[in-house]
């Protein structure tokens, strides 16, 4: 049953009430009658075809006993989507990969009959409990696993992960609050309401060492404390304006486990003394908004949001506001201006938003992933949390491991793990036997880290020392085919478009840097340009008003620092070694490698490639638009970059 606005459910007044819901609903999660099918239906799953699979499965098995079809969030291994988990009838829990609409019925029907269709299995699950359910016995303890199929917990993509923020993603239906409660949800809130004074909550968060997961890494407990000290009305705000291109953990949490964010906000509100919360979500995430609305309605129905929460005097309401496509609105002061219905322009932070933010009132702003960590810290304790991670960076961080890497998806790892472990162990290295070139972290404010620093442990400090930042957790892997000058230009073009325009160093400075980079990419670079870029970078960094401008030169500075040879090749030799900048290379057929398979000629949209089958082919440079289709299509590496 999906609860809509105004529906009244049982009012949660005690921990016992939560326990009762947990008893009722953990059956569906662990011991269903018949077969249960969980289909990963976050945006990524849907993009890979999960919706069609879901509809097909539901049509064949409409609601009812025997076989139940459910939707869940994303298990993280987006590359293998649609991901479908099937369990029940005393059989092992199996995760299938790439279950498109053509395969899903065969997989379900096979499972019912005891034929597991091993070739479609990604892995089987050894233990489906989350870290908040260790008081319960492993429901799979008595079940005989399938021989010859690896466990999910052991496969390289998962075996180094520790799931705290992503604990429920992919395991529960995000539209059912009862399933969140069954996984230990809202227990932390009830404990805080009934047993902890607000200063105690803040103390635990401070001791845990939790730092903001949105970018800057400010200690969360200290932020809460400064907000709690002030008088009058104050607000708890969630920054869900996940703007860094290449990062999508917040989307996944909101779509897969929205209640974890609501519970984190509720605890923050209780600690700070706030009665009104806001979630600012970017408009590019319509599904996240939809699931949040449902989550808020459900929490209100159970008395976990609204007035008299849990039967106490504490009241808290949450409003969702959507952005309208402005990267700068991820910056705190711009976000709050946007929440007020204004243009999202940042202001100078002589007075912090904790003191004077939204509506000029004290405002505590944390990011989605930060809030999702909070309930776990309160249940497991600050010390437990502090044992994960490094001295200065505690806990885990979710990274979106994407780009030129074999296994792409969301990975949640303890701080301190090395970049090499993430890219090569979890990510499986670079596809198509290409060479690793760099990993880009921190979005447009971050930098590109080359191979010699791959053994660096990942934490806030270490990444900053390398000239990059942790940022919100985007991790984009680049291989030999990525031109680092082009990447620097890409980020500067991005920032040029997204600069709000009110301060001159950022508006004009970034534009100038982008133009110099464009010149270099077009073969019009001058030897003095590198120096000029560095000077401009120093000026922009020093005099810009907000974080966007201050960090904007980072992608250029790190690429000059680590890949200066590529800049020089562009400027002095008029060559783009990676074959990206169109003015500086051309494709040629390698006489020794071409066997005349004719594939390139068939694929060329310009009909620029000629040659008879089994004979050497030739590219007409006049017709070639350098789209790269032939380069990617050739199985014999016979198309070379000159």
């Amino acid at each position, binding site marked *: 049953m999906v609860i809509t606005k105004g529906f009244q459910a049982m009012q949660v007044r005690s921990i016992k009430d939560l326990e009762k819901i947990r008893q009722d609903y953990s059956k569906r999660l662990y011991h269903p009658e018949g077969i249960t099918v969980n289909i990963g239906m976050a*945006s*990524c799953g*849907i*993009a*890979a075809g999960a919706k069609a699979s879901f509809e097909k499965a539901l049509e064949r098995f409409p609601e009812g006993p025997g076989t139940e079809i459910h939707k869940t969030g994303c298990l993280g291994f*987006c*590359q293998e*989507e649609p991901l479908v988990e099937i369990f029940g009838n005393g059989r092992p829990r199996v995760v299938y990969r790439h279950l498109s609409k053509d395969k899903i019925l065969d997989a379900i029907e096979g499972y019912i009959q005891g034929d597991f269709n091993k070739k479609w299995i990604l892995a089987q699950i050894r233990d489906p409990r989350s870290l908040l359910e260790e008081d319960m016995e492993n429901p799979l303890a008595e079940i005989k696993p399938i021989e010859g199929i690896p466990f999910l917990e052991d496969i390289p993509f998962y075996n180094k992960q520790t799931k705290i923020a992503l604990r429920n993603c992919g395991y529960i239906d995000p539209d059912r609050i009862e399933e969140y409660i069954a996984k230990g949800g809202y227990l932390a809130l009830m404990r805080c309401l009934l047993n902890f004074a607000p200063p105690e909550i803040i103390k635990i968060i401070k001791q845990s060492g939790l730092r903001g997961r949105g970018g800057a890494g400010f200690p969360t407990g200290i932020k809460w404390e400064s907000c709690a000290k002030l008088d009058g009305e104050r607000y708890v705000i969630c920054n869900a304006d*996940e*703007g*860094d*291109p*290449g*990062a*999508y953990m917040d*989307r*996944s949490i909101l779509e897969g486990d929205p209640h974890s964010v609501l519970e984190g906000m509720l605890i923050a509100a209780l600690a700070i003394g706030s009665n009104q919360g806001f979630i600012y979500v970017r*408009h*590019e*995430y*319509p599904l996240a908004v939809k699931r949040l609305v449902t989550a808020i309605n459900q929490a209100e129905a159970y008395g976990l949001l609204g007035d008299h929460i849990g039967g106490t005097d504490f009241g808290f309401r949450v409003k969702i*506001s*959507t*952005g*309208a*496509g*402005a*990267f700068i609105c991820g910056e705190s002061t711009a976000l709050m201006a*946007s*929440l*007020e*219905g*204004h*243009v*999202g322009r940042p202001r100078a932070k002589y007075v912090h938003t904790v003191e004077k933010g939204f509506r000029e009132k004290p405002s505590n702003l944390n990011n989605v992933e930060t809030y999702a960590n909070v309930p776990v810290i309160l249940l497991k304790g600050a010390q437990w949390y502090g044992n994960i991670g490094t001295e200065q960076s505690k806990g885990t961080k979710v990274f*979106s491991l*994407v*780009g*030129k890497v074999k296994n*792409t*998806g969301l990975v949640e790892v303890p701080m301190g793990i090395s970049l090499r472990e993430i890219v090569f162990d979890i990510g499986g290295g670079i596809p198509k036997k290409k060479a690793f070139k760099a990993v*880009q972290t921190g*979005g447009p404010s971050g930098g590109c880290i080359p191979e010699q620093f791959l053994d660096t442990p990942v934490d806030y400090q270490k990444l900053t020392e390398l000239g990059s930042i942790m940022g919100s957790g*985007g991790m*984009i*892997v*680049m291989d030999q085919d*990525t031109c680092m000058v082009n*990447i620097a230009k*890409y*980020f500067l073009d*991005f920032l040029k478009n*997204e600069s*709000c325009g009110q301060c001159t160093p950022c508006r004009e400075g970034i534009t100038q840097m982008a133009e110099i980079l464009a010149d270099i990419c077009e073969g019009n670079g001058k030897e003095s340009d590198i120096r000029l870029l560095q000077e401009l970078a120093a000026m922009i960094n020093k005099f810009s008003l907000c974080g966007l401008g201050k960090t904007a030169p980072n992608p250029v500075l790190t690429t000059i620092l680590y890949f200066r040879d590529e800049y020089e090749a562009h400027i002095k030799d008029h060559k783009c070694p990676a074959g990206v900048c169109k003015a500086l290379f051309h494709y040629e057929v390698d006489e020794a490698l071409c066997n005349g398979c004719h594939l390139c000629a068939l*694929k060329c*949209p310009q009909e620029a490639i000629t040659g008879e089958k089994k004979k050497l082919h030739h590219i007409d440079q006049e017709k070639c638009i350098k*789209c*790269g*289709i032939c380069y*990617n299509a050739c199985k014999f590496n016979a198309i070379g970059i000159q």
Partner: protein
Amino acid sequence: MTETALCRTEQTIEIDYMELDRIIGEEFNNDQENLIMILQAIQHHYNHLPRASLTYLSEKIGVPISQIYGVGTFYSSFSLEPKGRNIISVCLGTACHVRGGARLWERIQDILNVGPRETTEDMRFTLEPVRCIGCCSLGPVVKINEDIYSRVSQENIQKVLDGYH
């Protein structure tokens, strides 16, 4: 705004003031703080922000038209010009970029013979860049209306486009 687009706006758009009242009053309580969301609802209804609706909104919630114009032009999701029947959003996020998003973006411009944020003559498509829709594992990603396509290539994009009229 180009002249033809302006003509299209003024000739074909009739404002449904009952619906505007419903959006502004009932859905968003005439609240100035909800300006961005009201504009989104209007754009959802008309496919762009018709001029007459903005002047009406200005009076209704007491926000100067200059400020509404500021908001309407600051945020990239708003359009003052009518858009095509199908909106193509090509993801130019970093993950899509390193996997060939930029060349795909050029290819679509070639196929449709339009530039960024332009609409085809027959109003069939409007082409827009989008900076990451959070499906980075499956890039390059293209969104057409509400449908998301993953691992789109220069070779299969034509087939995808053929599905929209």
